């Protein structure tokens, strides 16, 4: 079960790559913000799987903090970033 959980965690780590690709590619600011959304869910799942695999209860607290702070960061992006970026820049 430990190996299974870790393998799934590795798969989810790869899905973070999709989010990073979107952050690099854009094209609009909104697209780039999606990467924070990906981290807010997939990385939480990775941490929960690691917590189970190693029997470290503390990692669940880390996942909780992750969920909360990812939300605050995402709000910061929406509220503070939008004055800056030119949307729809051609690819």
């Amino acid at each position, binding site marked *: 079960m430990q190996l299974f*959980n870790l393998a799934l965690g590795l798969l989810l780590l790869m899905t973070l790559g999709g989010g990073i690709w*979107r952050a690099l590619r854009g094209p609009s600011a909104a697209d780039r913000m999606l990467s924070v959304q990906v981290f807010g869910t997939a990385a939480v799942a990775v941490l929960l799987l690691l917590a189970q695999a190693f029997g470290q209860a503390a990692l669940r607290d880390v996942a909780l903090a992750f969920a909360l702070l990812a939300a605050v960061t995402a709000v910061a992006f929406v509220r503070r970033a939008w004055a800056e970026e030119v949307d729809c820049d051609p690819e």
Partner: protein
Amino acid sequence: MILSDYVAAVLLLVGVFFFLAGTVGLVRFPDVYTRLHALTKSDNVGLGFVVMGLAVEAESWFVVGKLLLIWMLVLLAGASVAHLIARGATQRGVRMWTD
């Protein structure tokens, strides 16, 4: 392996499948609104299945409660932020994909 192990394994696999589907949508879909839709919904469902899979094997009710709390928070934040991003994109004139 006992029965609960199989149940947990199936739930976790379903969860990871939803995550992968969401990522495919994020990478392949044509505009920000469709990407947002694919990503937010399937990732939150995916996390829900992962949480359920882990809850089956959790050592105590306290852990189950904490897992559910984390999922609720992610649901709440994910839905609200998705709304805010879509709203901001509309106001900034990001056009929807039509074809």
